[in-house]
């Protein structure tokens, strides 16, 4: 599974899942922390919808962590102050970068989490749709 989809699932998903995957690696490999979880900023570049130009709306606080497994570096980045999850994400990223065999088995777990995430969002959407104004004309 590629990184964009994977990180989306993990960031939105539960801490449990991230911990389970990371601990699997921690049990079997030497994980070296290259950069302790640290706060930083991501500047957000927006497309303005009027002229289709770009502008900066502001920055987003992130927590970032870098780890190394054998020779491979992995990166964990997540919004807000979240050092623990950033650490887990870095381990998972590193495992994928190193192509560790454990990652093959994760596919199924991730897809299941993705479904859960989507269902939650869908449910919220349906609730929001209840606030939709109904303009249908009643026919007699």
């Amino acid at each position, binding site marked *: 599974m590629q990184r964009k989809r994977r990180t989306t699932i993990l960031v939105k998903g539960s801490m449990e899942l991230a911990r389970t995957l990371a601990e699997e690696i921690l049990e079997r490999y030497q994980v070296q922390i290259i950069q302790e979880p640290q706060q930083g900023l991501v500047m957000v570049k927006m497309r303005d919808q009027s002229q289709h*130009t770009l502008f*900066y709306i502001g920055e987003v606080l992130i927590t970032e962590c870098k780890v190394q497994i054998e020779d491979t570096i992995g990166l964990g980045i997540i919004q807000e102050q979240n050092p623990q999850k950033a650490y887990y994400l870095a381990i998972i990223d590193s495992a994928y970068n190193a192509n560790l065999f454990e990652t093959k088995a994760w596919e199924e777990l991730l897809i299941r989490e993705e479904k859960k995430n989507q269902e939650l969002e869908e449910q919220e959407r349906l609730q929001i749709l209840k606030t939709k104004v109904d303009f249908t004309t009643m026919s007699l």
Partner: protein
Amino acid sequence: MGYVAVKGGSSAIEESIKRLQYQRIKAKKKIDVEVIQGTLRGLIDKIMSESSLYARELAALAIKQAEGNPEEATFILRAYRSTLPRKYYSQVVDTEDMRIERRISAALKDIPGGQILGASYDYRHRLLDFELYEEKIEDLEKLLQEFEAEGWSNSEEEASGAKQKTSEHSYTKVPKVISFLRAEGLLPPVKIDDSEPDDITRKSIEFPTRRSARLQTLTRGEAGAVTALGYAAIRGYGMVHPTVGELRVGYLPIHIDYPLQEGNEEDAVYIGEIEVTEVESLIPQVIEKEKGRKEIEFTVGYGLCYGQNETKAIAMSILDSCLAKKDLLSPTAVHDEEFVLLHIDAVEASGFISHLKLPHYVTFQSELDSLRKTKKKEENHESI
């Protein structure tokens, strides 16, 4: 040093800070940061927007530290920003990808995707709710249960239950009002412009500005100041008459390019999502065509800010279009980009106003000297 040194300043400051601390705690009440984060959404949104830092928990902490004073909380958060390294720039975020919580249009009765009220103060009467005096955690829990019974949910278990109901509606993007106005030719076509935006926090603003610098300044402007100038612009001191084409509140996913190695689009890193308010105002404008022919076209004023800040986003869209209008015969202040952009920043405005509290006796002495000399001269003059 053998002589008595003046020690007034240091100890007075210490005591003043102690006094401040006392003021915060003397009622023997405390508020937890997570309580602020869970209950003061409006204030947090305002402060994140004005400090141009999206960080809910830190905003809540700043509110606690500032005793709820928004000017002070914004200030604290802005200063904290200065100490953090900017690690990455996001990929371009397009609001077409917004997960909608609310969207309305004033321009059209019904719009594709519908008028979705979402959570809004607009239709709740502003009656003081005395029942809130009596609110208990148990009440909240009970209320939440009722919501859940209706299908509202935050928990994962509940979500799976909703599965059957959802299958018929797959998640779709809600089309933008200006997109179909554009498709119909009612708005002038625009080209994608990928030129690098200016960043006023890295390079001081230069006049005349580029649009990117204007939008950045407006979006981090103080809500009251942006609203006041936007109000002035539509009340009579500006040449714009807008209609809100669309107002949206919702979540946008943020991605960055994976920094460790080059990769394709699918290699990006998702870091989370931000809630924003977006407004497109439609403003009619007379355009001169060839051979003296005149046509009315709509231009779009754009407002976008962190959190649910609807008034500010609308006012921003008004000011955006005010500042885009050049060559007016008698421009008013809201069309003057220096006037607007240099005076709406919360930290700058409050800082300079409050600096008047600082002692100025050296300069005052100097003025006094000038004044006395002129008096003396005039007296001499008269006696001659």
